[in-house]
């Protein structure tokens, strides 16, 4: 009414602009409301990183913006992608503000995630992983699973902005007793927060035990402490250890209860379980049958069960068709606090599936993993393995070869000391592989299936191994059920009767001598080509 018409447009424009800015600001505030009361100053780094990433990568931003267009399972409809033959899983707990030696620092975490994105790695969901694992779907190469254990607040708040910016998703393994059933925690995520995470679309809530996430359980009369999942508990009142049946009932209750609690609260099926401390019985102190019972009990409830990479576990990625005994087990790489983004890429790079022909002159480590039993060194263009002063020998496996099938391996080696040297092929795990066993007076083809060793074919002779320090050639050729062991280019022993179940797997080397601290084995160069 009493508005000066000359200036009204200008004023309306100004007010409108201010209004819009405020509205957007309030929207941003509203969508980050969960931070109020939980905010820690270092989270700002995540937000800043997220912001700068979006500014620097406007197109990835668009993809994120329109991500609601795609429905689950429709993600990989591009036709020209290469499919993944193996998938790594990364384990974190939380991102912390200042280094504590255990958890990654926020800057490191950001660096790692950005490095992964830059290098083309993309997350998949547990659901997608499961379908891929069963062979129902394929996913592109460089897919990985990102997981956070324990359901800690610092595994969500500082992580969320980064996931958002990079269009990544992650799974969080929660301890249901702490997250769902106890009073509002300041450390663990609460039900409200978990629901919010579920709704955000880039989190999956999975189980990390109901209450057996406990490494201070009393497991003997003397008061020894141990992991509650993998040991018989000491029943104080009755002055005895629990029985096998009680153990079975207890872990069944824990498995099923944690699944039920999450499913009821979140309204989504829980597919997987992460073993507390990565221990599914192998770390047991008082109950050798623990592993068997845990897997037996867990499998019907959780099709996928995650554990951390162990030192004897010689692949870092997971393959689709593993041995029956490991069905559903998923190995995870525990990301160390001191890995930079480049380090992480390098470590993942070593696990990336290797293609034929493969040649290695050992100028750098392209994925050789040692069993850890003995000594191992990769430098000056040679791969050395030998016994530790108290050991019999050592094994190395080439990471990223688990999917290999038919191949011709040729290695140039020296054999300074020790009774046997081996080439391993079709290596799936320590309980399933084929070996060419070379000794001074015999060469065997051996197969190890479900842990039992079987010499298929052998030749006994005085073999003309050169003097120590001199190079010679050994080889292995596998194709279908046919295997050959070669010495200096000559087939020494062959068979056509490999176990049909041992139809794929990678390569490795082993040195051995029953006398402690003796065996030594050096590989100078290696060529592997595909056999048609």
């Amino acid at each position, binding site marked *: 009414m*009493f*508005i000066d018409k*000359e200036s009204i447009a200008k*004023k309306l424009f100004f*007010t409108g602009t201010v209004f819009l800015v*405020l509205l957007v600001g309030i929207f941003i505030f*509203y969508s980050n*409301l969960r931070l109020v009361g939980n905010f820690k100053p270092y989270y700002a780094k995540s937000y800043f990183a997220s912001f700068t990433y979006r500014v620097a990568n406007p197109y990835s931003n668009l993809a994120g913006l329109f991500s609601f267009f795609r429905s689950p399972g429709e993600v990989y409809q591009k036709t020209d992608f290469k499919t993944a033959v193996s998938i790594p899983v990364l384990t974190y707990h939380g991102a912390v503000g200042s280094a504590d030696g255990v958890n990654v620092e926020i800057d490191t975490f950001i660096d790692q995630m950005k490095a992964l994105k830059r290098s083309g790695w993309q997350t998949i969901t547990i659901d997608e992983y499961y379908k891929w694992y069963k062979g129902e779907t394929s996913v592109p190469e460089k897919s990985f699973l990102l997981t956070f254990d324990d359901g800690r607040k610092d595994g969500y708040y500082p992580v969320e902005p980064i996931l958002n910016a990079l269009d990544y998703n992650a799974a969080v393994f929660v301890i249901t007793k702490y997250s769902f059933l106890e009073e509002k925690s300041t450390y663990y995520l609460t039900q409200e927060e978990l629901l919010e995470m579920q709704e955000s679309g880039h989190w999956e809530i999975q189980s990390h035990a109901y209450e057996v996430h406990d490494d201070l359980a009393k497991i003997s009369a003397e008061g020894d402490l141990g992991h509650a999942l993998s040991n018989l508990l000491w029943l104080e009142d009755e002055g005895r250890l629990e029985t096998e049946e009680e153990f079975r009932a207890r872990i069944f209750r824990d498995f099923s209860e944690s699944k039920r609690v999450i499913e009821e609260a979140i309204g989504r099926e829980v597919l997987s379980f992460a073993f507390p401390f990565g221990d599914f019985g192998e770390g047991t102190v008082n109950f050798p049958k623990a592993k068997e019972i845990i897997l037996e009990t867990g499998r019907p409830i959780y099709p996928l069960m995650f554990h951390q990479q162990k030192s004897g576990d010689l692949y870092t990625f997971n393959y689709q068709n593993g041995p029956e005994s490991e069905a559903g087990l998923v190995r995870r790489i525990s990301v160390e606090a001191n890995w930079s983004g480049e380090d992480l890429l390098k470590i993942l790079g070593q696990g990336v599936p290797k293609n034929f022909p493969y040649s290695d002159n050992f100028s750098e480590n392209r994925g050789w993993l040692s069993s850890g039993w003995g000594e191992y060194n990769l430098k000056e263009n040679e791969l050395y393995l030998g016994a530790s002063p108290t050991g019999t020998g050592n094994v190395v496996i080439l990471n990223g070869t688990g999917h290999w099938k038919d191949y011709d391996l040729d290695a140039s080696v020296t054999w300074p000391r020790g009774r046997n040297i081996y080439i391993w092929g079709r290596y799936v795990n320590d309980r399933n592989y084929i070996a060419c066993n070379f000794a001074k007076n015999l060469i065997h083809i051996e197969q190890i299936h479900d842990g039992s060793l079987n010499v298929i074919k052998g030749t006994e002779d005085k073999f003309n191994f050169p003097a120590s320090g001199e190079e010679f050639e050994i080889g292995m050729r596998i194709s279908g059920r046919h295997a050959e062991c070669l010495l200096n280019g000559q087939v020494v022993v062959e068979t056509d009767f490999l176990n049909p179940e041992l139809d794929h797997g990678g390569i490795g080397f082993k040195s051995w001598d029953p006398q402690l601290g003796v065996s030594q084995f050096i590989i100078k160069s290696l060529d592997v080509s595909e056999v048609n």
Partner: protein
Amino acid sequence: MLRKTLQWWRGQHVNSWIIFFVLIYFVLALKVFTMEELDGNWFFGMYSVLVSLYLLSRFVLSYFYEPPTIKFDEGYEPTVSFGVPAKNEGENIRETILRIARSDYPKDKFDIIAVNDGSDDNTLQEMRAAKRIAAKEGIEVKVIDWKKNKGKRYGMAECVIQSDRDIIIFIDSDSFVEKDTTRQFVKYFIDGRIAAVAGHAYVANAEQNILTKMQAIRYYISFTVNKAAEALFGSVTCCSGCCSAYRRVYITRILDPWLHQRFLGVECTYGDDRSLTNFLLYKGYNCIFAPDAIAHTFVPDTLNKFLKQQLRWKKSWVRESLLACTFMWKRNPIMSVSFYLGVALPLLSPIVAARALLWMPLIRGRTPLFYIFGLGLMMLVSGIYYYARTGDRKWFYGVFSSTFYAILLVWQLPYAILNLRDSRWGTR
């Protein structure tokens, strides 16, 4: 340390408007947050949101109010009477009259009517002295002397009756006008719909003490923000007595009902200015605000006087607001919505305050952090607004002042309602 920080801050030349908008953002953010935390009590939630929106809407509306400049006619010079009713104002009355006499307006087109309402001091003598001085300048001052006190409303009415001019400008006996105040007032009356124009009162004794400093900022905000917001719709609800202009002929039409106004069976002896404005609004006339028609007025400098004045104002606010509720809906929809909000929210504020400050801490054991924080933020907003508009360092008193006024409102309003029928004068 503090000094250095302050120096650094000033060195940054941060535009205070930016701070103003950032603060508004915080207010809104806080509201969003409290809405989330409200445990579903919609009444208090609505109150919390509405009160902020109401206060912020004042700033927006006042921003749009700009008195029209194009249709002013430089040659429009209606005749003017100044009405100065006074009681016991010997100290200032002479200066008040002489300041008016020095107005930059044709001498034959204005006169001054001073009413001595039964003063016990030298008010009458001062009036006569002023009259003599003014006469030398050729300005007519009529002095009306009542031996017995009749009340300000009768004094004002007498001015209306005694005058034969087009416009009557009421000036409080302790207010000083500026030279061009008259011109700034009369130019609006070229629009026949306008019945009253509220002037912009500044506090003359602002530097006297904390109390007057606080009032100075309060005055500034209530004129430039609240009155301007109402003026956008021609519906200023109170053309304050210290300095306002009226079209005399419109007053004559409502003079009798106004003069003999009764409320709850008692004759109304306070809130004469608000009441007069209300009558004019009721008649459908427009009342606006002239930001450039300036007067300087003395405000209470002791707490006691201040509290009495505030109580009187609150009583008249309650009475006149309730009366205005009966017809405000006829005016501009935005105006009527904001008017009814403006009545309802303060009336509810004691309940909300009681809940936040008594019920929650005592019964539920919760500190009223949000309430206090929200209140503080809102006050900071007006403080910064004052600073942004004036650049005056006193702005911080604005924060005190709003706090002070808010606390006052909360307990004085119920008291005022209970004492509505008590028609004693207070200080005047």
